[in-house]
Every structure is written in structure tokens, then in C-alpha cells.
């Protein structure tokens, strides 16, 4: 459906805008000795309003043949054919109207006098069609721009939502309550370790609050956050949790979206180490080479443990944020093998300006 016909409020202003064309066509038809001004107007206005609707048909070829992406000969041929056809129908319509008026007293010769005007009228019809085509292309461009704007706003909202989810996820209540319970347990048996754990927990909370607001942080900062998290978990899990880091100094300066590693490290513990009676080692590998930053996180898991529903909330959030930021240039792979879990991330290495 044509956008002007699709909505009620649009038709009247549109027809009003066509009225001046009625005056122009009247001027074209009125010729002393051939058609009086009254006769010209009586023919011109119905014809113009009829054209107002006929001209709308240009919307369909215009939509089928966008200016960019269509070949010029096809474009010209299609519109020329449509213009000739529309104008011919229009001129015939004028003849019909003239014949209707011929029944009025003193107007028997109107059809033949109208016939003399057919050529300039036909040319006017073609020109009006060209105008309609031009206006339709403007309209389509305007709509495309608005659509692009809407899509951009949508993407923006999606990115915001992903960020919000991250902010919410950065401090999992589960982790917090468990840590508080551990502190409470240590308070009587090992007060000094209880204090140490309070400081570690505070350190982690402070760090995660400060990075959440930033758009990018360095890998070094992100690692510091993960280490603060791991330090708390090491107190909870005791000898069951080991961490092994293999880091490349060049990778430290690279910029990444905040809280990229931390949720993955958290998953490695919750769905990996915690599922094993004997615990295990979380391996963290960061390397920067050939313009790419590669991060690898690996953890053992109990082969019998069920996988978390939906593959874990953390994974999909990280994947989303990587796509929002790098598009197709980000590689994210998470795989559960028989007794361990592996996450690989590869993104363009971004260095601070």
C-alpha cells in the first residue's frame, strides 16, 4: 500500500498540494478562441485530481528499482514506458471528460476543441510523471534514512541491554552470599584469614564497580579483576582450586570490553572446578600476535556433570558483547570436551591511542 493512501490524515493535504497543478493545467488548456478559462478549468481540475492518484503508481516501480543498485538503461526504460502509458491514459481520460461536458448546451464542440490540445497535454502528463518519480525517490530515500536511524537506535538499545546484563551479572548474589558465609566461618576459627578475605572481597567489588562504567579496559586491568575474584574463591575452595596463567606482556596493554574474562573465569569455577571432588586448575592464556589478541580459558570438569541450561548466562553475554563491538571480526568459541571446557576468544588487538 502506498504510504499516502495507507494513512487517512495524509490524503487531504496531498490533494490540497495538487490543486496548484490544476491551475497550471488550466493555464495550459485555456487559449482564446479555442477553450475559455471556464472550460479549461472544468477539464483541468478533474483531470489533475485524477492524475493525483495515477501519479502515485510511480511508487511501485520506484520501490522495485532503487536508484543505487539498478542499471541505468533499465531504470530509464521502465520509467519512460510507465510515463508514456500513464500520460496516454490521462489524455484519454480528458477526452472522456470533454465528451461528458459535450451534452451541456453550447458545448457540443468541446471534444474536438480538446483534441487540438492533446499534444501539449500529453507532454505535461509525461512531465508530471517525471515529477512524481522524483518525489517518490525523495520519499523513499527519506524512509530509508529513517529506517536506518531506527535500526541504529535498536542496535544501541541492544548494546545497552547487554551492558546492563553485564553490570547485573558482575556481582553474582551466589558468589557474594557464599563469600560472606566463608568469612563468617573464618571469623571464629581463623580471624586473620577472615579479615584477609574481607579485604579481598572488598577489593574485587571495588574493581568490578569501577570497570563496569568504562567502555574499554586494558587486559592487565581485566586480569587484575579476575585475580581478585580468584583470590576470594581460593579461600572458599581451598586446595581444590589452582590457577595457572600464561600471559604475554604485549597482550597486557590491549583494550577489551570490561568484564570479558571475569564471567568466563567465574563459569570455569562454578561449572568446572566446583563439579569436581578433587577440584582442578583453571588455565588462562593471553597472547598478542599478528594484530590479534587471543585469549584462552580452560578448566577441567566432571564428565558426568550436567551442562548448565542454555550453556550458561555468562557465555551468551560475552558473545553478544563481542559481536556488538567487533561484528564479524570477533571469534568466540566455547566447547565442552569430555572432561574439560575450553573458551577461545580472538579479537583485533586494540592498543590505546
Amino acid at each position, binding site marked *: 500500500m502506498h504510504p499516502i493512501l495507507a494513512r487517512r490524515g495524509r490524503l487531504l493535504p496531498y490533494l490540497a498540494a495538487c490543486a496548484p497543478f490544476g491551475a497550471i493545467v488550466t493555464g495550459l488548456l485555456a487559449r482564446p478562441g479555442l477553450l475559455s478559462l471556464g472550460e479549461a478549468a472544468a477539464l483541468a481540475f478533474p483531470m489533475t485530481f485524477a492524475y493525483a492518484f495515477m501519479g502515485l503508481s510511480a511508487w511501485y516501480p520506484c520501490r522495485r528499482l532503487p536508484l543505487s543498485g539498478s542499471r541505468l538503461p533499465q531504470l530509464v526504460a521502465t520509467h519512460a514506458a510507465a510515463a508514456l502509458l500513464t500520460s496516454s491514459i490521462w489524455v484519454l481520460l480528458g477526452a472522456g471528460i470533454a465528451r461528458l461536458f459535450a451534452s451541456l448546451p453550447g458545448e457540443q464542440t468541446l471534444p474536438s476543441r480538446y483534441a487540438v490540445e492533446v499534444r501539449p497535454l500529453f507532454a505535461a502528463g509525461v512531465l508530471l510523471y517525471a515529477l512524481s518519480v522524483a518525489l517518490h525517490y525523495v520519499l523513499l530515500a527519506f524512509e530509508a534514512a529513517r529506517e536506518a536511524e531506527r535500526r541504529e537506535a535498536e542496535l544501541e538499545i541492544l548494546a545497552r541491554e547487554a551492558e546492563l546484563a553485564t553490570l547485573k551479572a558482575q556481582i553474582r548474589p*551466589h558468589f557474594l552470599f557464599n563469600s560472606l558465609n*566463608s*568469612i563468617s566461618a*573464618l571469623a*571464629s576459627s581463623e580471624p586473620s584469614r577472615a579479615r584477609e578475605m574481607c579485604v579481598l572481597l572488598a577489593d574485587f567489588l571495588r574493581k568490578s564497580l569501577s570497570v563496569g562504567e568504562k567502555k574499554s579496559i586494558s587486559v592487565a586491568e581485566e586480569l587484575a579483576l579476575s585475580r581478585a575474584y580468584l583470590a576470594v574463591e581460593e*579461600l*572458599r*575452595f581451598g586446595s581444590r582450586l589452582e590457577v595457572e596463567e600464561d600471559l604475554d606482556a604485549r597482550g597486557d596493554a590491549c583494550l577489551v570490553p570490561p568484564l570479558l574474562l571475569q564471567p568466563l573465569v567465574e563459569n570455569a569455577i562454578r561449572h568446572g572446578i566446583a563439579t569436581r*571432588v578433587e577440584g582442578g586448575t583453571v588455565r588462562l592464556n593471553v597472547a598478542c600476535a599478528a594484530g590479534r589478541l587471543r585469549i584462552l580459558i580452560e578448566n577441567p570438569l566432571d564428565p558426568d556433570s*550436567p551442562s548448565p541450561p542454555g550453556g550458561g548466562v555468562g557465555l551468551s553475554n560475552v558473545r553478544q558483547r563481542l559481536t556488538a563491538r567487533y561484528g564479524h571480526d570477533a571469534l568466540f568459541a566455547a566447547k565442552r570436551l569430555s572432561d574439560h571446557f575450553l573458551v577461545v576468544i580472538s579479537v583485533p588487538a586494540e592498543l590505546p591511542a
Partner: protein
Amino acid sequence: MTVAGRVRDVGVLIVDDEAPARTILREYLEKVPGVRILGECGNGFEAVRASGELKPEIVFLDIEMPKLNGFEVLELLEPSIAAIFVTAYDAYAVKAFEVYAVDYVLKPFQAARIAAAVERARERLGRKTAVEPAVLAAAARPRGTWLERIVVRDGGEVHLIPVRRLAAAEAQDDYVALKSEGRTYLKPQTLTSLAGVLDPRRFVRVHRSHLVNLDFVRRLETIAKGSTVAILADGSRVPVSREGHARLNALLG
């Protein structure tokens, strides 16, 4: 203190995979009069074994643990044992506990709350829990997620059967016979409660006392007018009732 003297000692088992959590539970429980701590376990398997050997009357049971989670452990415990669940934060589980009036304590622990839980458990000792463990476990799962594995105890041995390898199940008196990879396991459960926790797109109740995994159904055979059997991958035959046939047709389109 005549009152304290009359209180019968109850044996308590502590099950939690985190050492600090066990430490504080022990500390608080030691202060509750009439409580004898029988032992501590760091995972679900240990808990099942220890409860068989130590015969506790009350078990403090963590939910997230290696090997078997708290709900699975509960399924394998003697029904007379009073379980008190322990959790840091699990909205679904807590809702299920509320619905079925199963006692639970939240981390960080509170000494008074632990003592109260022991008191309540003492009152209902010997009485069977009102809710079937499998039903409780199902209620504690997020909506739209289904059971991934079934736990069965066979004497002192615990078997984990992934549901994708469960070919069929049959009701046998108070048990279900679970058929998986050429073996049959017996579990004290009703077929209806089992059917309720399995993905209905994969498991079909083809008969009042038979449930089949669609992945294992090879073909249907009509043996007499109105009498159908399903032939499974291993060649075994499962009777299909008229209603069961309709259910199969609805699923297979």
C-alpha cells in the same frame, strides 16, 4: 536441667563441598543441645555412602555439589531421614522449598536459625517427607528445563543414567524399571512422577505402565485389531495403548 536430659540425641550429617561452610555448620550445631555430629561430607557420593553407614536422622544438605547435587542425594537417602537444605542463593530452589514446606537455611548461616531447623526436624523425625524427592527436584528447576540424568542406588552403588540413554521405563509395583544400554535399574518411584520430569517431546507415555524414549522407537506393529506394540532399537517390544497411540501420533505429526 531435666528438660535437656530428656531430649534424645539426634545424629546429624553435614554435607557441603566448601570447607568453610562445613566448619561454621559444625560450630553452630555443636552448640545445639542433643545434637551428635556424625560426620562431614564434601560431595554427593560421599553423602549417600556416609548416610548408609552412619545412619543419621538429620542431614544438612548443600544444593550445588560435585557428583550429585543436593536434590539427587535426597532421592537416594532413606525417606525417614530429615533433610535440611542449605543454599546461598537459588531463587527456584527456595520457591520449591516454600511450596512443599521443606526446611532450608540460607548462607551466611545464623546460629539461631540452625538451632530452629534442628528443632523442627526433630519434631517430624520418623515421619516420611510429604513430597516425593523427584517432585521437589522438578519444582526447583527453572521452567521449561527437564531432567538430564536419573540417579539410582543399587545397594552401595550409585548409577547416573543420562536421560538420552534411557530407552524405556516400566512401572513395577512401587518401582520403575529403567532400561538403559541393555541394563535394567529399579528405582522406588512412580512412573507418573518420572514422566512429569522428563522432556515430553522425547518421552511418551505409550501405556499406563510404559514410557518410551522416541529416539529408541524403531517402528510400530499392529498385532491384532486395536492392539499395537512399539519395537525399540534393541528389539524389545513395548505395548501401546489406544491413548498411547494417539499421543505418539500427535508427537510424530
